[in-house]
């Protein structure tokens, strides 16, 4: 199972294994990690699962869809070049070891 490391805004690290196919949003909420909300249920509709993806993994991700790119315009914390929505990233073997940082606020 791919391992994902979430780093909360206060620096708290959580290293968890996610079943392949789970999204990073689901992985956070179901492992009790604070700092990701996912209010819309993972339909790319609320931008409350904003994550900053470690640069070394950025090129392993499919680029954001048009909707995701547009939704990233309304994140509560500032959008950066490595901003993505956790509900749109699925844990897959090639992403094993991915590190994402969580923003200060989601809503």
């Amino acid at each position, binding site marked *: 199972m791919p391992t994902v490391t979430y780093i909360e805004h206060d620096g708290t690290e959580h290293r968890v294994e996610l079943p392949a196919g789970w999204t990073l949003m689901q992985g956070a909420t179901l492992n009790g990690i604070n700092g990701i909300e996912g209010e819309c*249920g993972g*339909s790319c509709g609320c931008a409350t699962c904003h994550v900053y993806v470690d640069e070394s993994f950025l090129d392993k991700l499919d680029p954001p869809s048009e*909707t995701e790119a*547009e939704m990233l315009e309304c994140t509560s914390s500032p959008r950066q070049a490595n901003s993505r929505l956790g509900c749109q990233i699925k844990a897959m073997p090639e992403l094993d070891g991915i590190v994402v940082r969580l923003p200060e606020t989601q809503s």
Partner: protein
Amino acid sequence: MTAPAIVVVGAGQAGYQTVESLRQEGHDGPITLVGAEPHPPYQRPPLSKAYLLGETDGMRILFRTADYYAQHGIDLRRGRSVQAIDRSGKRVRLDDGGSLAYDKLVLATGSRVRNLTVPGADLAGVFTLKTLDDVDRIGEALGRAAQVVVIGAGFIGLEFAAVARKLGKAVTVLEAAPRIMGRVVHPVLSDYFTAFHRGRGVVIQCGAVVAAVEGEGRVQRVVCADGAVHAADLVVVGIGVLPNVELAEDCGIVCDNGIVVDQYCRTNDPDIFAAGDCAVFDHPFAASRVRLESVQNAADQGRCVAATILGHDKPYGTVPWFWSDQYELKLQMVGLTMGCDSVVRRGDMAVDKFSLFHYRGGCLRAVDSVNKAADHIVGRKLLAAGISPSPEQAADEGFKLNSLLG
């Protein structure tokens, strides 16, 4: 002073958000969350979409795993309902004969589906779609079904129709009103979505009043008042919801098509609060009393009620937003179209990417977007800031609406 004991009735979106926010905001007193369903609190939006298509599962739609609650000192009572509230004794009575004392009580009782009341509505094969168990029952029956009839063309009915089409079923949608989603969207959008569904092979009949559901032992057809007969081996009824106000009404809490609260989610009892589908309030954006059936409202009122109880009052007045996913169409709505007198379109309907900007007296009041999340987002910001683009600016895709936000 010891932290108050808080009881939350209802474990849907609003109830879950309330307990989550209470703990996040530092409440360290007892919390009990009472939910009638057997499952830990879960997200409803995927039920009529990704869950039915098998793209997600019962585990992944949970807000938190089942053990999260105990780990955070939250006493989650699943499969339990509250029968009565004793305001003077500050206790609630449970259906298992037990009772719970509270210092603060939050009613997040939600809504229940409006039932079809025609003969045969209780036949096997006729379903409503609200809970995880409902959807599991539908999913099981859907495998064997060939002809699906959906009664009611609101979001739930149309989302289900889209799913059933994707699964290769013959689908007929019967709507009593003259147009689909008539209660929530502009006629232009009703027409657009009608054409889109028809393009995908769905039969849509508006003005179709269902008179009876018939079948030998299980549903075989739906009969309309005008005599039309629609063959069916599976029927989903989606004709709206009713707020669960009885608990509140029975103990003298003021209700008016919902439990009446103020901007801090307070009822007329200083120790009782309400949030979500069951609550009605004077919305500052609407400038009228509204009851909102949406995830955004449930979540934001959940946060609001937690803040109120903890004494960091944050009045609730978020501009309402909603969404519906049908096929590859993402419909996102922000604001309220009630009372609007003009509308302009931005973008091209022919390529399924456009928004409608609704005005009242020259003032922007709502933006409905189809596959145009950028317009939805800028619409949220404009409406929250009280800034109106002129209708000409809104209709001109070359004009950057963001530039008005400074």
